[in-house]
């Protein structure tokens, strides 16, 4: 009991110093609000996590604007309880939303902020995620060499964070970084390295049972294989990506995978089969309102049907394409395609 008394009087506390520090803080903070209880902090963090997840959901359906609003709310919530890591996560997600919405400049500043916070928080996986995001911005701008450098750093950070990690975050971050590195490598012609990177990402995602990510790995691999001319292997890879996307019920991914399969069959000269894939792609794209995939399918389907001698069908596709053009406010297409 006296030990406690002694301890209480230990000089370590330095009340005077604390007091002056407090005074300075109070001044800096202006009208400071009442200290938040831990319960409130918990609730706010939970809310931030919930908001971020809702945002992820919108990302999945291509509603980037809505997703960004949710990430913004998550960021505010994280800020209000000084959750640096949470803020970093929200900013990184926001960056992806900007990027997907075609606003690379905004994406870059979001990723940069995210990186800054991740560094402050000392969170390796969050830094990796932010770096990977910055790399993706460079990829979007066409600077693959710069991107590759960033992805390499992201990979290194995630690998460091993976050691002794208790959460799944570093593994996920690593999978993304390795995959993105593969994309950059492929764009720079380093196909062997790219395929090796993809294999590693695939392994990580298989272990983590992350189907839609797995599908992305296989999709990109199919693309690389196709560029090397290994069309059969590419088709197999695209179809396995399709399986993974189906498992993940990722409609947008399904549309893309089917389109890839259609294109590959075309290149292999298997016209009817290609037609089937493209139609399925169109069906899926329409079901999830994926305009880009629908357009790609329609643009492929028309000539393909025509080349197979199915003129009526081709006309129908042309009509559908014209409808799409009209809906998107594009100039009227060539008169031949008019109904």
């Amino acid at each position, binding site marked *: 009991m006296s030990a406690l008394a002694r301890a209480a009087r230990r000089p370590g506390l330095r009340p005077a110093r604390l007091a002056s520090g407090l005074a300075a803080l109070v001044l800096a903070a202006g009208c400071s609000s009442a200290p938040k209880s831990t319960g409130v902090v918990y609730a706010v963090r939970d809310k931030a996590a919930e908001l971020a997840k809702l945002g992820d959901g919108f990302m999945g359906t291509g509603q980037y604007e809505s997703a960004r609003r949710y990430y913004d709310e998550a960021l505010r919530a994280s800020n209000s309880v000084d959750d640096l890591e949470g803020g970093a996560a929200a900013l990184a997600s926001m960056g992806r939303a900007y990027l997907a919405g075609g606003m690379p400049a905004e994406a870059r500043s979001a990723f940069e902020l995210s990186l800054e916070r991740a560094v402050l928080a000392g969170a390796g996986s969050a830094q990796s995620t932010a770096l990977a995001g910055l790399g993706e911005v460079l990829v979007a701008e066409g600077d693959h060499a710069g991107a590759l450098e960033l992805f390499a750093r992201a990979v290194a950070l995630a690998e460091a964070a993976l050691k002794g990690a208790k959460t799944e975050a570093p593994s996920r971050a690593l999978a993304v970084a390795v995959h993105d590195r593969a994309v950059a490598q492929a764009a720079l012609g380093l196909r062997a390295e790219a395929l090796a990177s993809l294999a590693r990402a695939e392994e990580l995602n298989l272990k983590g049972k992350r189907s839609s990510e797995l599908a992305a790995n296989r999709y990109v691999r199919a693309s690389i294989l196709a560029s090397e001319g290994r069309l059969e292997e590419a088709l197999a890879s695209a179809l396995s990506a399709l399986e993974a996307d189906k498992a993940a019920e990722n409609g947008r991914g*399904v549309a893309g995978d089917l389109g890839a399969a259609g294109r590959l069959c075309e290149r292999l000269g298997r016209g009817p089969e290609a037609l*089937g894939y493209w139609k399925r792609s169109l069906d899926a794209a329409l079901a999830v309102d994926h305009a880009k995939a629908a357009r790609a399918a329609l643009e492929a389907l028309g000539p393909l049907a025509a080349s197979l001698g199915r003129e009526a069908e081709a006309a129908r596709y042309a009509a559908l394409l014209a409808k799409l053009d009209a809906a998107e406010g594009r100039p009227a297409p060539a008169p031949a395609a008019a109904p």
Partner: protein
Amino acid sequence: MAAPVLELRSVTCTRGEAVILDEVSLRLEEGEAAFFMGAAGSGKSALLKAASGLDVASAGEILFRGRELSRMTRREEAEFRRKTGFVFQDAALWANQSLYDNLALPVRIHEPGLGAAAIDAAVRRAAELVGYDEELRARPAELSLGERRLIGLARALVLDPELLYMDEPAANLDEESAERVHEIQAALKDRGRSLFVASSSSAAVSRFADRVGVLRGGRLLAYGSFDEAAAWTDPALRGITGRLKARKAPPRPEWASSLAGAWADALAEDKSAVDEPEWKLRDGASGDGDIDSDADAGPSEGGGEEDGRG
């Protein structure tokens, strides 16, 4: 028209000099779920305590199916307690009784004639309902807070109440448990039970609320139907209800609907166009698709097409 299941008339609560509930008036019709939002300390818990008669209001009237709480006879009050349940934010289990006794006491009190087997059945059913399948002989202290709160919920449900007060029922629970709480809320609503909930989870409010109330500093700033709440524009309210998701999906993009129609016509004309539907899209919306635990988060968590679009 029948009396509402719960009605508050100018209810004021004070603690010492401080006013913690200020002239709150509201009605809750039979089978409705009212959710109350507000920052911490805005009076949500105080409102629940007052509305359930756990705190004595210093002014105003609280009516349960037209009967005023403070004027109830002993028998009426027992009846009121039997037909209502209260889920405490911190579980509030009786620490010196086993979980089993915690669940059994309400039954023993209100159904004195019931045999041990019937009580046992009721207790097991309640525990099962909340998904607690561990040993019931344990004491509350042996459980984690999350488990205790599930048992607290089970205790409130053991007599199948017609009106359930819930104080932040899903806050700080792990996802599985939180989802279980939401399922129970949904099931209660389906069975026409009334809910009176303090919640800071906008997702839960979006899923279940018929009426939404916003509290600040002990005042009920606004109280209205969910659709009204989702459309509130006052910044003071919007700050709290701003995250409410509209119940209905937004209209499809024009191109999509027109194209989809045409495509459907095409399919009808040409049976061979697509041999089999590619893949059962879930009600037109989809998550981002990871099959891990996160997969069912996001807009698809409601599992219905009312959810999902911002």
